[in-house]
């Protein structure tokens, strides 16, 4: 088929010159999505490799450096909770054990798939707006067939969320002052709660918790968990975006305190 006879111009369909008659600003959501994702990728990329300003007030560890397992973490005593064993190299992020999997978790996420298929790949950019590609096989072939591995990244992300929770709890203990609560604690706490909300509202989680069952009546507990996860799942897109924001803000806060640009306000202690 020639390019001009594709899709809405295929033989037999109503002959209309305009490939789309949508007159609203349909390009706005994909453009905003592209911008939002790029901001996060650039910020995250820069910070992951900066290897500086990741631990503040001897207790706040930014999620971008958790778990801190590089030999380089020794520059901030107290930052490494799980040992230091990765070589200290400018191309190896200190959290090289978690970051790639978190990236893959989001890359294979059903929501982000929708977001980048629409924005980066324009497939489709908006509903009833023709996509530019001549052929289309969806997720039937390599590499996109690998999207089916999403559940494995969900399991790993849950483990990493546990580590982030541990970090947030540990941050209440100052090596010299004992139990303290600062603004940074609240920042870490809000971030970790939202990370859990994003992780638990995952479609694979919904499936694993109970979605795969045919007879809910035989599994009352799993049915209740499924119902609860389903409720969160309707807000999965919201959590996907809000956590990109809280991750940046949390990291920024820790970085600014670590650099001495701002002072962390103590509420207790």
């Amino acid at each position, binding site marked *: 088929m020639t390019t001009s006879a594709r899709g809405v111009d295929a033989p037999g*369909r109503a002959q209309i010159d305009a490939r789309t008659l949508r007159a609203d600003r349909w390009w706005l959501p994909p453009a905003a999505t592209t911008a939002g994702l790029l901001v996060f990728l650039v910020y995250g990329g820069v910070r992951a490799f900066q290897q500086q300003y990741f631990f503040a007030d001897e207790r706040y560890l930014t999620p971008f450096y958790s778990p801190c397992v590089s030999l380089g973490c020794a520059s901030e005593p107290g930052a490494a909770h799980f040992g230091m064993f990765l070589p200290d190299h400018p191309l190896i992020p200190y959290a090289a054990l978690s970051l790639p999997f978190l990236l893959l978790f989001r890359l294979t996420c059903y929501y982000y798939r929708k977001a980048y298929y629409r924005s980066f790949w324009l497939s489709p950019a908006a509903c*009833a707006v023709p996509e530019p590609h001549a052929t289309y096989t969806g997720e039937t072939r390599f590499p996109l067939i690998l999207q089916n591995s999403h*559940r494995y990244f969900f399991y790993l992300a849950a483990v990493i969320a546990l580590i982030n929770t541990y970090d947030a709890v540990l941050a209440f203990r100052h090596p010299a002052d004992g139990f303290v609560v600062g603004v940074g604690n609240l920042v870490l706490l809000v971030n970790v709660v939202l990370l859990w909300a994003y992780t638990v509202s995952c479609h*694979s989680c919904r499936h694993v918790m109970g979605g795969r069952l045919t007879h809910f009546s035989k599994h009352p507990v799993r049915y209740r968990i499924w119902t609860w996860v389903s409720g969160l799942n309707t807000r999965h897109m919201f959590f996907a975006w809000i956590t990109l924001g809280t991750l940046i803000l949390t990291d920024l806060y820790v970085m600014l305190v670590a650099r001495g640009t701002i002072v962390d306000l103590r509420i207790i202690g």
Partner: protein
Amino acid sequence: MSYTGRFRVWRGDTDGGALQDFEVEVNEGEVVLDVLHRLQATQTPDLAVRWNCKAGKCGSCSAEIDGRPRLLCMTRMSVFGTDDVVTVTPMRTFPVIRDLVTDVSYNYAKAREVPSFTPPADLAPGEYRMQQIDVERSQEFRKCIECFLCQDTCHVVRDHEENKEAFAGPRFLMRVAELEMHPLDVADRVPAAQEEHGLGRCNITKCCTEVCPEGIKITDNALIPMKERVADRKYDPLVWLGRTISRRR
């Protein structure tokens, strides 16, 4: 309030056609279908438009308004400004017959490819018993009025005629999900969802959900859960191992 509305309506057939401009009276409370009927009554007695219930329940009046797949009888004129030009075309994924009427037989062919409800062999009709919580998920999908707006908007077939062969479309992948989740259906529909009905071609971009006049969460509640079931069966070595071991016991 009554005003003269400006419309562009596609008129033609398989041999060709064009958008034609009309000025028609619009009254308060009307929907696009009302105005098309007035157009038929006053200016274009031969305008072809399919409709039946005028209540958003029969699924006959599917078309595209300002480029978006919609029901003509459920699109209120009040969503447009009095100066707007309202463009109405037939659905652009199916072959046109005349004016706003398309040939939707692709959908009937796909419907026939889904094996029907298969109850357990030892149950006679009248003996079916099931719990509400077990049928709930399937019931959401029963709200479908078969307007085929989701099929029309899905880029898999809208933008790629050649995919019609291999892809059942959201409406019928949802039908597969409905039966797969049904407590009394014993047929195994998971491999076929991927291999025969083309589930892998869906890239979960949710346009079907966006246009569904019944508000069915097609992608979240039917397509993604089916993708997860397919992953269980075809792409998850752990689940496969678990099943094999538990079967041996």
